[in-house]
């Protein structure tokens, strides 16, 4: 057991340590630093810009950035719909999988474009190689690139003294893809292939004979490339239906560690990138410190709960030397599954290597809490945007407490910014609690529609519903499973939640940063609140606990907490 804890800690330290230089590199990408990287990628990007008729030098204000972001997302959506609806006759379909039905295509396209990757299909039977690559994997790249680019706009806005123009969106977006996501995914894919993850285009299913003598069809395809960006871009959508629990998607402990590393890498690096970009390392450390404190508390609780096992089994007199192993892969074990589950929920990734439904109640609660906060590192780019809203709220309260009207990095935080920040902060509890309340209401009423929703009654059933809406609102995409969610109610309700909870939390912070950038710059003095102090970090942490965590306290009480206390 101790080796598991030790290896988790070692893993965390190594990941954080490697994300630091990556952060410096990302800052360089957005600062337009030249050098070797520019010589390699510059020409490719030039060709793309020339083909699309975009002038990457044309500066945009924050409204134009958002317009560009939403427009390009709309176009991708239409493209993905086209591919998914027509994959049956399009090339690269060796297994002869049929085209998707319109509602399934809609659900799939939306959930991939918002970086959530709820999957109501199974990759083996539901998607062609062409769709996997040109619709799904493509969206995994560009949706991650969208998040990173939006983050870069906020970076730029935070750096400005007084400015309206904040760089070119397409430039940020393309560089995010070519210079950050592509190289990382490429290298990671090579490692995955080396460890046995398939990567082929021509052949369809393979046939093997198992030890029991059964003949089994095994799907293959461009898996390694898909899995690399699925993790690096905090997408989470698996090539196979069972995601990273599938032995070809995540064959060994080493691929497991690599994938887990990829889940955390860019979200962590993005925080350091802010420090390098603004030349405010201390600020980055404050943010990283707060995120890490929250992450480790949640991780610690989960690991403890999982390694401890299920008290009900203890009472039966059965030993649980490996911890709670229900729903977990033997090759990963309880500890690494706990680590994965917290990494994937913290970063809005959503890929799973174990059944979250089967985790101990407390661990399940921690996974939900992770997604309710949704900014302990968070999704690529957008995790920082969520955190930025908490910084704004903490700045307002903290600024008053030092006897000045609040200011962040020399810009006054006033009514308009507060309005936006509050709306974004409200959105998450609103969507989760309202959605769950409606579902709980139908279930309690015994509505026929709700008859087959829940596999489990009582608190656990409540957790299943709460988890589903939390996952949707956090753009996470993982499921507690055990919930019958492939029906009209869940498809529509979570679909709406997905769209709202993706775009509003991007629009809000970009607007705040843009508004602040336009304001007069006020130089710092001894009386100014410094956002890079440990004290301020504590305040941000408290704001997160009180707004993000405590507003879900009653709901969590009726789900995982009640279940935990009843065991």
């Amino acid at each position, binding site marked *: 057991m101790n080796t598991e804890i030790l290896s988790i800690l070692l893993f965390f330290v190594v990941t954080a340590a490697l994300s630091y230089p990556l952060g410096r590199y990302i800052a360089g990408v957005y600062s337009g630093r030249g050098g070797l990287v520019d010589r390699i990628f510059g020409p490719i990007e030039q060709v793309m810009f020339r083909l699309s008729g975009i002038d990457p030098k044309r500066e945009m204000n924050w409204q134009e950035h958002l317009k560009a972001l939403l427009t390009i997302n709309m176009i991708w959506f239409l493209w993905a719909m086209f591919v998914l609806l027509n994959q049956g006759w399009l090339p690269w379909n060796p297994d002869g999988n049929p085209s998707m039905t319109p509602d399934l295509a809609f659900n799939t396209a939306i959930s991939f474009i918002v970086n959530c990757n709820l999957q109501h299909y199974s990759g083996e039977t539901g998607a062609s190689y062409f769709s996997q690559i040109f619709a799904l994997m493509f969206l995994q790249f560009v949706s991650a690139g969208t998040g990173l680019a939006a983050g870069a706009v906020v970076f730029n806005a935070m750096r400005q003294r007084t400015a309206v123009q904040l760089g070119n969106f397409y430039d940020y977006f393309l560089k995010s893809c070519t210079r950050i996501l592509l190289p990382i995914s490429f290298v990671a894919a090579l490692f995955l292939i080396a460890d046995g993850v398939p990567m082929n285009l021509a052949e369809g299913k393979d046939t093997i004979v198992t030890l029991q003598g059964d003949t089994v069809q095994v799907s293959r395809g461009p898996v390694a490339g898909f899995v690399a960006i699925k993790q690096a871009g905090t997408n989470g959508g698996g090539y196979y239906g069972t995601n990273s629990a599938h032995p070809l998607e995540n064959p060994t402990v080493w691929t497991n560690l690599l994938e887990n590393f990829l889940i955390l890498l860019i979200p962590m690096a993005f925080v350091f990138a802010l420090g390098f970009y603004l030349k405010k390392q201390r600020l980055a450390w404050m943010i990283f410190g707060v995120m890490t404190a929250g992450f480790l508390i949640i991780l610690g609780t989960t690991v403890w709960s999982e390694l401890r096992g299920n008290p009900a089994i203890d009472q039966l007199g059965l030993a649980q030397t490996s911890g709670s192993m229900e729903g977990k892969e033997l090759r990963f074990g309880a500890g690494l599954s706990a680590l994965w589950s917290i990494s994937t929920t913290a970063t809005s990734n959503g890929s799973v290597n174990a059944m979250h439904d089967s985790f101990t109640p407390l661990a399940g609660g921690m996974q939900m809490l992770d997604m309710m906060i949704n900014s302990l590192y968070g999704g690529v780019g957008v995790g920082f945007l969520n955190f930025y809203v908490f910084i704004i*709220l903490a700045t*307002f*309260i*903290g*600024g*008053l*407490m*030092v*006897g*000045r*009207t*609040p200011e962040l990095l*020399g810009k006054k*935080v*006033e*009514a308009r910014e*507060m*309005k936006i920040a*509050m*709306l974004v*902060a*409200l959105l998450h*509890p*609103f969507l989760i*609690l*309202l959605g*769950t*309340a*409606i579902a*709980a*209401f139908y279930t*309690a009423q015994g509505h026929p529609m709700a008859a087959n929703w829940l596999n489990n009654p*009582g*608190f656990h059933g*409540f957790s299943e519903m709460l988890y589903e809406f939390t996952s949707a609102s956090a753009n996470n995409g993982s499921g507690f499973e055990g919930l019958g969610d492939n029906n009209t109610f869940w498809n529509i309700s979570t679909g709406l939640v997905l769209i709202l909870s993706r775009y509003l939390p991007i629009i809000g912070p970009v607007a705040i940063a843009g508004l602040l950038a336009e304001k*007069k710059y*006020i*130089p710092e*003095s*001894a*009386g*100014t*609140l*410094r956002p890079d*102090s440990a*004290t*301020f970090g504590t*305040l941000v942490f408290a704001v997160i606990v*009180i*707004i993000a965590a405590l*507003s879900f*306290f*009653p*709901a969590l*009480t*009726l789900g995982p*907490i*009640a279940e935990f*206390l*009843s065991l």
Partner: protein
Amino acid sequence: MKHKKSTPLFAPELVREAVREALIKLDPRRMWRNPVMFTVEIGTFVMLAVCILILAGDTTQGSFGYNFSIFVLLFLTLVFANFAESLAEARGKAQAASLRKTREETPAKVIMDEMGSYALRSSNELKKGDRFVCETGDLIPADGEIIEGIATIDESAITGESAPVIREAGGDKSSVTGGTKVLSDRIVVEVTTLPGESFLDKMIALVEGASRQKTPNEIALNILLAGFTLVFIIVCTTLPAFAQYASTPVTIAALISLFVCLIPTTIGGLLSAIGIAGMDRALRANVIAKSGKAVETAGDVDTLLLDKTGTITIGNRKATHFYAAPGVEQAELIRAAAIGSMADETPEGKSIVELARQFQFNPAAINLEEARFVKFTAETRSSGVDLSNGVRIRKGAFDAIKNIVEKAGCQFPEEVAVEVKGIAANGGTPLVVIENERVMGSIELQDIIKPGIRERFERLRKMGVKTVMVTGDNPLTARFIAEQAGVDDFIAEAKPEDKMAYIRAEQGQGKLVAMMGDGTNDAPALAQADVGVAMNSGTAAAKEAGNMVDLDNDPTKLIEVVEIGKQLLMTRGTLTTFSIANDVAKYFAIVPALFAAGIPALDTLNIMRLSSPESAILSAVIFNAIIIPLLVPLALRGVSYRPIGASALLRRNLLVYGLGGVVAPFVGIKMIDLVVGIFL
């Protein structure tokens, strides 16, 4: 600092007035302006409806006594919140009433024609541009500018300062305020304001809260509080569905109690009181802010422009040294200087005689009966005495005396010239003394820096405020005094344009600038500055241009104004923090109580071990209600500001009001529960 008698916080007459007002404010049309408390009011109405339902026979909501208690407690919460605001207003009104006493009808001697004949009119009938006469013993009927004459005036009615002041036509001391009294002489005054719009009238309206508007920061804070309220509306409206699923029905009383306890009622109830109290605190320091925003802005000031004289130095210079010319005995110089100053009534002159005494000079031994005194004039820039024996003694500025000496065909000694430059470089003002045409030597006058001013500037520096000294002195002297006093920068040989340019330059860097001024030529700078404090003795133009007026005419008041502004903002911030931090304990009191019946396992969450669900809910609501009046003194007095740097201040306030806000309700609710438990 002179302060008017301070009214006790809970003076009975104020409390009575405030309670009455608090009840009137329950009108929903007025509560609407405060979204947080408005939702509490809705909750109160719902509880009233529940009570009626129970009386009508409903049995699902628990006992009547319990529900009625919740209703009463919510009602009290509302009254307490309104009481805080009313008390602040009542204090303002009391202050205003004492000002208004001076506004009672006063007869005015209005000039009717060119010949100067006048008729008696009521002050209410005065129009702008009317001229009236005031003589010894008259009350000045309206605000105006002296256009003729000079008078000593008792302004104690508005300033509380009993020493009379001199006001005269022309210059910067020409304005008079209605309600003050002429003690001597006769002046002709032109009315500058319409009746009911005089300076005092505006002030009174302001402090009474009639024209009070929410400041930008208050609006932003209100958005934050409304946001928190919305979060908890979501939390509480979704709970019944959850509870229904869990088959543990929640009573309306429990739900509304949870809601009211979670929303930031503490700060919501105290917010407007804090704002009013901020202006009131300024008023108590005898500063009238024209708007709440001005006080708020004062807290943000980055740069303070301070006049040297009166702020940094005591108004008068003092003689500190005698330097004899070559070939002149020290005693001779002292004697000449002292005799030449004995008739000089200026503080400088007196200080020369004072210093001479220390060198065994005896003024009583000098007979000046036959002597003729020569007064200082701007032209000669020297003064002195012609003795009966024909000896002429003069003392004055270096170049003026040099002129006299050289006109008489004598040589001005080089050594004295060097000495004079040395004095100036040392921050002193040199005077040269001559007897007939013979140069006797020089006297050094030094500015006396106010005791304690260095520490005040140090305090300002720690607040992050830069101090700038404005002086007419030459750069050498200015630099010396600036260093002595510890200001960060200075403007020497300052003309009004220089002040203006400095303010613009600072503002160009994004800084907020505060300054104080009195003269008409200060008006543009006062208007340009973000916080302009005009002295009440100043011209009407200056007062109009500034956004605050200091009734005491005390130049150091700026420093106090900055602290009042900071206090105001800090009080808002700390009470918001306290209010929100309270939620942690309230969750742990109410949430287990909500589901206690249906899910016994949740009793583990009852970490305070409250005696029963009803008691837990009642205790939380009681705590939530009484914390408001308990914090009223803090809201009205303000959180004390300590210049220890922003980070240290944040740490301190976070510890006291954040951590304190988490811990206090745990203790408070538990204690109340112990008492409530007895009755249940």
